[in-house]
């Protein structure tokens, strides 16, 4: 009915080393993650910081690093709050070589059903009630606009 995880993938015409660099290197990360810069300390337990101009900062912690194979972090779905059980999901990227020079990049975000109490916390945030539904509708419009007619 409502899944606990989301899984997406893409085929990239580049070897795993190049995909790994695009995924994890600071100079690239800021281009695909957030729209106002992002940083990752590339070690288990390292900080993940992803900034948006209008939505504050998402904070995470690196869970797994296996160069050219796996990159995983836990992150909070509440802006500006560190991840902890109840507000966090686990994001896992895996890189699998396909043929001579291509890579299948897969991302799985899991733990949606373990979220607890973030809605109550939201109500306590003065600025937050503008972002919930509005953000969701913007997403939906973006999604619909991107679908072929």
């Amino acid at each position, binding site marked *: *009915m409502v899944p606990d995880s989301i899984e997406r993938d893409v085929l990239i015409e580049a070897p795993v080393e190049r995909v790994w660099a695009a995924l994890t290197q600071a100079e690239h990360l800021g281009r695909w993650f957030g729209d106002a810069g992002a940083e990752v300390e590339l070690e288990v337990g390292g900080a993940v910081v992803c900034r948006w101009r209008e939505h504050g900062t998402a904070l995470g912690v690196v869970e797994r690093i296996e160069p050219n194979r796996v990159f995983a972090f836990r992150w909070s779905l509440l802006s500006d709050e560190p991840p902890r059980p109840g507000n966090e999901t686990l994001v896992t990227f895996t890189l699998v070589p396909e043929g001579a020079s291509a890579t299948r990049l897969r991302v799985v975000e899991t733990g949606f059903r373990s979220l607890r109490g973030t*809605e109550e916390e939201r109500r306590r945030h003065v600025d937050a009630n503008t972002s919930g539904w509005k953000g969701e509708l913007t997403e939906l419009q973006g999604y619909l606009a991107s679908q072929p007619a």
Partner: protein
Amino acid sequence: VATVSHPPDAVLSALSDPTRRALLDALAARGEATATSVARELPVSRQAVVKHLGVLDRAGLVVGRRDGREVRYRVRAEPIRSTARWLQGVATEWDRRLLAIKRIAEEE
């Protein structure tokens, strides 16, 4: 692009329990039912059904109306739809990021 819209976790956590999902299915199949009649269909006590209905009610997933001495419940589909939309938004955001990573890796 909106990114960190807040998760509908009252709905997500209400749906995380298999008994509550079975309860919703049973209610949906009947249209409207009391705790007593649904408990006859499920391998749980009436007290447990009442407790689970309370969780579903607080998450907005069911609504009850008093009918004499009992309360008749029915399913509200809108929170399930809006939660599915929220998850679709999360998935769309990952698609966008994967495509951005693809562009960076394929550059040069």
